[in-house]
């Protein structure tokens, strides 16, 4: 994907709210209006759209079509992305393909969800027979299992996870879009005093479902210039993998999809881990961040705890981490979650990070995670590298 002439030429993000009482459509409208205002484009130039499947509206199989109708957009290319927290980066990648194939010129990648107001999802499948009776209702138990296995095979230092929580909270304090409730400082002591959810997973290792939206504009650089858009970034690498080791029932669950796709995004971009200006990894739980430091080669397998403890991860540090607070400290806007980390990367590369601006960033590594499968780690892993 390197040297592509297709760019992200605009982004928008609503504040993250808890039990807002509003719908995904309403949040999407706010994001679109902001996107149009930020970029100065006419809505009529948008001829492509990727929409993320939201928890709050996914009983409607035509949500994406309703979204187009609701927003007054008539796309010649419409994608409905069902890979959860990978749908935003995945939507950008698919929009790039669609633009390359001539299906559209200006695509909006829209992720909006409001599950803390309205839960309208039912994962069904095998779960009522083989998962629910065990009491494993949501991701925390699965991540508790994953953490236990990681700790068994490697060294897991809780103080490293505490450092992630505290670092990201410090960043959320500087993010006006972060959930109000999380905009108070956090100490390591607070982390260790936080309630155990599913041993050894604590509340402060975890995200909380909220409401919100984000949107991205994808087009060729030439089109952006035609439209008078001055700020854009190049997605120079993207890779995803679903159901890693899916035909191995006894697979090592500490081996994630990221270990397979990390070499691909580095090869596509020609970058190496030490070249990365900032890391905006999908953070449903702190252990996922720790494992990704290893999977992307910032350190060796099993060295994540020491790497975290020995690295300044603040926005002004060696490897700025989730500079907007991540989902854990900004709030997780349902399945619009993957766009939160992506929006922060684009914002920083546009130089709009305000009080938390990373100094002269050249690029950003963004990841997504989608859905929790049966007794494994996670369903989809996605990674994107953006360059200025």
């Amino acid at each position, binding site marked *: 994907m390197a040297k592509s002439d297709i760019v992200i030429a605009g982004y928008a993000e609503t504040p993250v709210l808890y039990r807002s009482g509003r719908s995904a459509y309403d949040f999407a409208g706010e994001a679109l209006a902001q996107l149009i205002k930020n970029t100065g484009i006419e809505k009529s130039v948008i001829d492509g759209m990727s929409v993320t499947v939201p928890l709050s509206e996914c009983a409607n199989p035509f949500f994406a079509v309703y979204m187009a109708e609701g927003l007054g957009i008539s796309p010649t290319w419409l994608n409905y992305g069902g890979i959860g927290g990978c749908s935003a980066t995945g939507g950008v990648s698919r929009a790039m393909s669609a633009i390359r194939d001539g299906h559209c010129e200006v695509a909006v990648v829209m992720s909006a969800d409001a599950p803390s107001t309205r839960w309208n999802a039912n994962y069904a499948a095998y779960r009522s027979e083989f998962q629910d009776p065990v009491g494993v*209702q949501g991701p925390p138990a699965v991540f508790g299992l994953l953490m236990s296995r990681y700790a068994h095979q490697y060294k897991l230092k809780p103080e490293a996870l505490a450092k992630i929580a505290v670092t990201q909270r410090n960043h959320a304090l500087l993010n006006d879009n972060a959930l109000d409730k999380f905009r108070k400082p956090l100490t390591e002591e607070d982390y260790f005093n936080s309630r155990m959810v599913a041993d050894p997973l604590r509340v402060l290792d975890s995200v909380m479902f909220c409401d919100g939206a984000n949107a991205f504009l994808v087009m060729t650089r030439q089109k952006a210039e035609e439209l008078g858009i001055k700020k854009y970034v190049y997605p120079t690498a993207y890779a995803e993998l679903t159901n890693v080791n899916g035909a191995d029932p006894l697979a090592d669950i500490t081996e994630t999809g990221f270990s397979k796709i990390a070499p691909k995004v580095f090869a596509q971009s020609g970058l190496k881990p030490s070249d990365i200006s900032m890391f905006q990894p999908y953070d449903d739980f702190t252990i996922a961040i720790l494992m990704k430091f290893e999977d992307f080669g910032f350190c060796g397998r099993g060295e994540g705890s020491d790497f975290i403890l020995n690295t300044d991860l603040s926005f002004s540090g060696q490897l700025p981490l989730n500079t907007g607070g991540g989902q854990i400290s900004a709030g997780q806007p349902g399945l619009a979650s993957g766009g939160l980390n992506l929006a922060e990367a684009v914002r920083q590369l546009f130089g709009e990070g305000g009080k938390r601006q990373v100094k002269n960033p050249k690029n950003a590594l963004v990841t997504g995670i989608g859905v929790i499968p049966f007794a494994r780690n996670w369903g989809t892993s996605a990674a994107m590298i953006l360059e200025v």
Partner: protein
Amino acid sequence: MSETAKAGRPVPKPNTYVDTTPFWEGAKRKELFLQYCKDTGRFQHYPRPVSIYTGSRNLEWRKVSGRGKIYANTVIRIPGPGIDGRLPLPVVTVDLEEGARILGNIIDSNVEQIKIGAAVEVAWDHLADDIYYPAFRLV
């Protein structure tokens, strides 16, 4: 063996995803049946519409020993649907001798001794009248 039905715990409805009749019939007799791929001679769990090894539907159900080792473990400590009155709830994944990994609860055991690598055997959790569900106990 836990013979006490737990209030408020949902009773699974068989065959919602694929035909799982042999699993539930076996459970009534307190025998653990898993899906078996006849082409490769390998087990798989949870049940699938095809063999995850070959993609064929050349599957059958076979009784397994119910013996295995704990692969990963956690304890759920927060309330949720269907787990009222069950907290703290030990949850493990078990690598069965037959080469499949299964999610389950630990019952009838000293929870302090639950650890990765510990040997377990299937135990039967009584959900409703004639409905039993596989769990595990430390051996």
